[in-house]
């Protein structure tokens, strides 16, 4: 690309000369003559993305955007430079494209916001049947993965950089060999794929090379085999929480989208509305049995602590009660085969649940944790079948039945020396494989190995070939969402660092030439009834192909299979068990390099930049440890040394630890972060492992960074809750909890704020599950910096929203512990205490009721933050954006500047704040202003005030899967927020201060079953002790 300018020949002995070098005619001068820019100007580049590359990429991305041109993935040389913009792009104006984020549970349909060719923000795709326009925390944070400067940029072979040509040669060679021997010795390992195109290539490859070994593996995955056995090959259960009156979760965290698949929280939340129950529609009731507090457990009306290994006994006990009460023969037969252990559950609890489930026949759901053994699944389906829920609330979808080899099969083949070439196109098996498979050693024996990955991880360190993977925002693809609807995955930008997609590699193996979307288009033609260009364009525009969902299947439990499954169940023993959790921050470890997620607190423990062994308070006492005490867990031949954290509400004799941490030698983001629990897992114990020996290690206490250390409300009515009965008697019970602390009359004249637009927000604590989606969405939208563990330890995290998680127990017992998450952001007080005390007028009030922050005026006295009763103001103690987090204290000696690629991830509409200024939630003022400008433009000559404001949402509201955040104009009585604020459950937090917050909360209402033990203690968070 370098331009060489022809230069007239130089005089041999010039009379005029510009430098001594010219006069002497030195080589360096002659060489430099033809160059447009000097070396210094051309190569100002530390992280491989120079200014020129950047402009080039932006141009490329712009050219690629837009439906019409999406097919033109032309060679780079022909791309239009950004200086001559494509006509549909307006610099500074966002463009939106439908796409989907593939996850192991299915695609999350998204709308990607791109700014000048850079994808900057992910939102849910509201058109998609499963999505209400919301996303989860992982989808929100996936933008950072795209721009992560630590992504590998080169294809390497035995640690040497090689070119794309070498890779093509390799793939051609593999294809040729496979063609000759029918694929013998060739194995391909992919993750839990939901892409029809990958599936098409699998079929093609297995046809071309019959002996090929196609392996699918996911570190944490639903027990698909169990569904195949119990419901029929390829039949997957689907749960309709919209219709369920009574739900029993047996160790299932179905509200966590990463765990159960996307789209359950919304259906569940719809049935949580206590107002609907006034109209004779019942509010649902949730029973949860689990070993650790999950977000689902936090929503429970009745929760029982049970060890993961006891969940089978628990399911059997409930099944037994249901069978006895209904006389259902099948269930009786099922229960009869269940092994009964020594564990016993409170019969009143079991009978209570059973009665309630029976009363809600056909309107109940019993759901077992998706990874739990087939014996537990069989019992859950058995109960559903006996109660007529199967086919009503528990339906099924017929996915394509296929038998795919597992990692165990692959390991066996590798052990037998039957694998010559292994292409690992997904996952990180060296890190995640069960220890008994001895995968790392087997892998070393395979002569040719290749790993396609987004990051350099344990697997890519040991494979012969490392190929950088393309991010889903930079590659063509497709993926099915949970219901089977095919979603389009469109590139928003050319691969930043030459990444390749799984599809491209598979296509090369299958001998199909891929040109842009051609492979995806070919697949589209195979399943779409209408393969026309118009249909394809609609597919891309909407982001999904309507009507492509899996066909419904009649769910029926295979009784014989169920009986033998139940028989296979094991009985819990007395020792400790270790339960392996999906991390709410790094999933199975795949997001370990994502600092946004590392700094996102765990749902329940509020731990950042770490995982921990979760121990029940009683066990901690018995083991003699406190938070940060070291434990050694030994199971089989492997052991794990990790620090423990006391987790209220945790089952005794049970230890939980999140996977995906404790990575070493990969990148500084992952370094010294948590403990690696994978070595404790073996093939027979993927979900939990019994018989774990635990000993306390006399090591110095480990220091955990948590964003909330104090979990007791201290008798203050902060998060308020009551019961449905209480609500029916006195709908305004929450506001009454102010008691004597009612807001006083102000002595001073106060602004009325009743003209024009007045912004306000309502947060429904009843549907808020505490899933962190809003938190990460806010970080992404508002360019909130990451500060690192040591700064969080000092109490300097910058998140504009924090989700306070309260534990409450009316009788101070673990059995009756409740959890309430409460999102707290700037309350936008009308009489804001922060504004009065700022000496520089840097925080002032707008006419629309917004508490504004003028960064330019802020000199950083921090008085505003002191005077904020909610402590939601965040101070830039250092130049978090400009200095590396490990050099914050180096002052001017620290490296300065942000990696170019990270700059690309920033929202251009939001200032990146410098050190020394205060910041806080702005109610996404950039979105408000955009909407107002849109309204003014639409109004034209007519009255702006009377013109409809374009619909918009704040970032947190948009991300919320349960729609518990409502934002809008409170001056408009018809707005959703006005209606929400008029709800009797509405109350203001700290109302007595009379600051008149614009954020109000709607109290949580629990729906206890009076027949249950401890029912009187449910919904009693505010009935505790008073300080």
């Amino acid at each position, binding site marked *: 690309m370098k331009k060489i300018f022809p230069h007239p020949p130089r005089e041999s002995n010039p009379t005029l000369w510009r430098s001594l070098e010219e006069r002497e005619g030195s080589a360096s001068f002659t060489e430099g003559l033809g160059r447009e820019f000097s070396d210094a100007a051309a190569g100002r580049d530390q992280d491989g993305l120079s200014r020129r590359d950047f402009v080039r990429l932006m141009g490329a991305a712009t050219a690629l955007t837009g439906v019409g041109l999406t097919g033109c993935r032309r060679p780079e040389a022909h791309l239009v430079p950004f200086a001559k913009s494509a006509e549909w792009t307006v610099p500074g104006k966002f463009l939106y494209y439908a796409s989907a984020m593939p996850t192991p549970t299915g695609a999350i349909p998204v709308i990607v916001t791109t700014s000048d060719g850079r994808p900057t923000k992910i939102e849910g795709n509201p058109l998609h049947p499963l999505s209400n326009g919301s996303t989860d925390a992982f989808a929100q944070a996936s933008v950072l993965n795209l721009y992560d400067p630590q992504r590998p940029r080169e294809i390497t072979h035995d640690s040497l950089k090689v070119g794309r040509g070498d890779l093509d040669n390799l793939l051609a060679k593999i294809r040729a060999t496979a063609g000759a021997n029918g694929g013998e010795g060739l194995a391909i390992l992919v993750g839990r794929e939901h892409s029809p195109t990958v599936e098409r290539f699998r079929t093609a490859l297995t046809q071309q090379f019959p002996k090929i070994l196609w392996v699918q593996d996911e570190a944490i995955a639903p027990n698909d085999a169990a569904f195949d056995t119990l419901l029929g090959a390829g039949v997957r259960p689907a749960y309709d929480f919209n219709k369920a009156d009574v739900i029993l979760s047996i160790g299932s965290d179905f509200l966590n989208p990463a765990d159960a698949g996307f789209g359950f929280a919304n259906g569940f939340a719809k049935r949580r509305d206590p107002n609907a129950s006034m109209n004779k529609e019942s509010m649902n009731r949730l029973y949860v049995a689990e070993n650790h507090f999950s977000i689902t457990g936090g929503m429970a009306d009745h929760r029982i602590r049970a060890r993961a290994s006891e969940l089978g006994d628990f399911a059997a006990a409930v099944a037994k009660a249901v069978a006895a009460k209904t006389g259902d023969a099948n269930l009786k037969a099922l229960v009869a085969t269940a092994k009964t252990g020594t564990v016993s559950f409170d019969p009143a609890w079991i009978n209570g649940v059973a009665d309630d489930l029976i009363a809600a026949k056909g309107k109940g759901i019993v759901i077992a944790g998706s990874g739990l053994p087939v014996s537990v699944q069989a019992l859950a389906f058995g109960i559903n079948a006996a109660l007529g829920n199967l086919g009503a609330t528990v339906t099924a979808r017929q996915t394509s039945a296929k038998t795919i080899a597992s990692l165990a099969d692959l390991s066996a083949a590798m052990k037998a020396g039957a694998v010559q070439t292994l292409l690992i196109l997904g996952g990180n098996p060296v890190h995640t494989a069960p220890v008994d498979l001895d995968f790392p050693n087997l892998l070393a024996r395979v002569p040719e190995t290749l790993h396609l990955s987004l990051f350099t991880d344990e697997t890519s360190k040991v494979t012969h070939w490392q190929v950088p993977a393309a991010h889903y925002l930079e590659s063509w693809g497709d993926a099915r969402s949970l219901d089977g609807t095919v979603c389009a995955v469109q590139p928003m930008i050319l691969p930043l660092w030459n990444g390749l997609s799984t599809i491209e590699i598979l296509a090369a193996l299958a001998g199909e030439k891929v040109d842009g979307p051609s492979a995806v288009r070919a697949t589209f033609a195979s399943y779409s009834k209408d393969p026309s260009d118009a249909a394809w364009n609609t597919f891309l525009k909407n982001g999904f192909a309507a009507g492509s969902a899996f066909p419904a299947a009649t769910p029926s439990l295979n009784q014989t299979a169920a009986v033998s499954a139940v028989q296979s169940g094991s009985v819990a023993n007395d020792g400790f068990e270790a339960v392996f959790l999906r991390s709410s921050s790094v999933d199975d470890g795949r997001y370990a390099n994502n600092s946004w997620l590392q700094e996102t607190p765990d749902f329940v423990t509020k731990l950042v930049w770490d995982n921990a062994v979760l121990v029940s308070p009683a066990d901690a006492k018995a083991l003699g440890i406190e938070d940060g005490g070291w434990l050694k867990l030994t199971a089989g031949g492997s052991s794990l040394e990790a620090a423990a954290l006391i987790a209220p509400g945790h089952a005794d004799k049970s230890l939980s630890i999140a996977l995906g941490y404790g990575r070493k030698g990969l990148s500084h983001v992952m370094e010294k972060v948590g403990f690696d629990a994978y070595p404790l897992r073996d093939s027979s114990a993927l979900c939990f492992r019994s018989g774990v020996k635990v000993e306390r290690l006399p090591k110095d206490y480990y220091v955990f960074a948590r964003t*909330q*250390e*104090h*979990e*007791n*409300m*201290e008798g*203050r009515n*902060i998060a308020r809750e009551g019961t449905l009965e209480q609500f029916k008697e006195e709908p305004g019970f929450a506001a009454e909890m102010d008691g*004597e*602390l009612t807001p006083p009359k102000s002595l001073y004249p106060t602004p009325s704020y009743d003209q024009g637009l007045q912004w306000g927000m309502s947060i429904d604590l009843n549907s808020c599950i505490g899933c962190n989606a809003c938190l990460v969405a806010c970080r992404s939208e508002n360019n909130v910096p990451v500060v690192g563990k040591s*700064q969080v330890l*000092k*109490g*300097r*995290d910058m998140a504009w929203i924090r989700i*306070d998680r*309260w534990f409450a127990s009316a009788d101070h017992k673990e059995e009756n512990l409740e959890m309430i998450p409460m999102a*707290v952001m700037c309350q936008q007080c009308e009489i804001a*205490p922060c504004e*009065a*005390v*700022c*000496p*520089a*007028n840097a925080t002032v009030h707008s006419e629309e009721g917004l508490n504004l922050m003028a960064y330019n*005026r*802020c*000199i*950083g*006295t*921090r*008085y505003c*933050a*002191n*005077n904020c*009763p*909610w*402590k939601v*103001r*965040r*101070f*830039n*103690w*250092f*130049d978090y954006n400009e200095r590396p987090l490990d050099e*914050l*204290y180096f*002052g*001017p000696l620290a490296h300065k500047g942000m990696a170019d690629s990270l700059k690309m991830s920033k929202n251009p509409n939001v200032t990146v704040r*410098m*050190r*020394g*200024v*205060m910041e806080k939630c702005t109610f996404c003022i950039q979105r408000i202003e955009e909407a107002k400008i849109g309204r003014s433009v639409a109004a034209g000559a007519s009255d702006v005030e009377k013109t409809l404001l374009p619909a918009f949402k704040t970032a947190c509201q948009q991300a919320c899967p349960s729609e518990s955040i409502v934002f809008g104009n409170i001056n408009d009585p018809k707005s959703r927020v006005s209606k929400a604020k008029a709800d009797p459950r509405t109350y203001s937090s*700290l109302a007595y*201060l009379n*600051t008149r917050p614009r954020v109000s909360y709607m109290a949580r209402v629990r729906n206890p079953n009076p027949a249950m033990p401890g029912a009187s203690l449910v919904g009693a968070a505010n009935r505790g002790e*008073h*300080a």
Partner: protein
Amino acid sequence: MSASTSNETVTPDLSAIARPPQVLNNRGPLWVTDAVCSIVEGKTPLWWYAAISISGTFAAIGGACILYMIITGVGVWGSNSPAFWAWDITNFIFWVSMAHAGSFISAVLFLTRQRWSLSVSRAAEAMTVFAIVCAGVYPAIHIGRVWFVWFLFPVPNNYGMWPNFSSPLLWDVFAVTSYLTVSSLFWFAGMIPDLAVLRDRATTKIRKFCYGVASLGWLGTARQWRHYESMYVVLAGLTSVLVVTVTTIVASDCATSVIPGWHATIFPFYFMVGAVYSGCATVLTLLIPLRALYPQLKDLITPAQLEKVAMLLLMMASCVGYVYVYELFCAWYSGNAFERGAFWERFHGTAAWYAITCLSINLTIPQLFWFKRVRTCLPLVFVLAILCNVGMWFERFMIVTTSLLHDFLPSAWGNFHPSIVDILTATGTLGIFFTLFLLFIRFVPIMSMNELKAVLPGTQPQHGEGH
């Protein structure tokens, strides 16, 4: 030096009601001049060099820390959320409060004709000025963007910047700057006749020139004395008002906020009595060693005067103790869970030891001054006075930071650990204070010679006894 020529008239038998003499051993005016000037004119003692090199080093380290903090970020301190203010504002209030005793002793006691304070007033005023300098360090540098500190001043400018006059922090700016101005003027004005004495006694040209400039051409004419004394009274009056207003304004930083533990109407009084309490302790801490190091001062700084300072300290400490109890009572009596919680956590929370240290010192140590034997045992008074100031530092921290650590939402509660920069900056201000004080001892008459001479026996018109 031992000039003992005297022009005293023999006093007949002292009656029981006579006040103790301000200058012991019947010293005459010339002796007073010699005694005070000898400190400035004599050879610099070795301990002075040792002392100033230590304090200067601390001051320099403190300065380096401040520079480091300005170029790196406020994060080098231990401050955090919720303790957005910690040692910075603690030290600011500590120093600015300490300053008040100096003004109180010299101005209020001057106006109320408390002559016992004359010998300590100059040193107390110097302490005031130097303490304000130390206090002023913090508000200037603790902010996030020091280079924009001018936003705090109502300077007409083309940015449209104008300060927010409803912010107590802005009141602080005016309070502290006017306090520094007035107390410096008051201190300097008091020195003019004494500087003229030094000028007149100077043996070198440089000294003569310097003191000549400093004494502003003082001749000691009756006309000058008349102007001088009326000016001095005016300045004393102004300073006395500032003693009250400045603490009140600094107290408003807390009192006008909404934070439990800050939001209390008693704060101006609380800060005022605490201020005089810590100031008295500082005066004792400075004067007792001074008296020991310069034996000629023993007749001028008498045990009786120091005892009076100790008594003043006792009174103020008792007021402080009353406020402690009152605060706790109010928190309980309010019935407000947040108020009660704040005070409960103050003594049970993460930073409880600050409050416990504060109360255990301030409620007990000063009470020892009820005993005359304690008050008059100067080495003991010295030690106890230092302890009192330690207690007062902890009190300032308790008010400023422990209140912040436990406010409304327990989810936002936190903890505070000082960083090394916090500690070295704090010791740096101590270094600045002592460096300035050592320079003061060495170059300026540390006592008001003109006022002292005025209270010598025989220099005042005597009434009765045949006169």
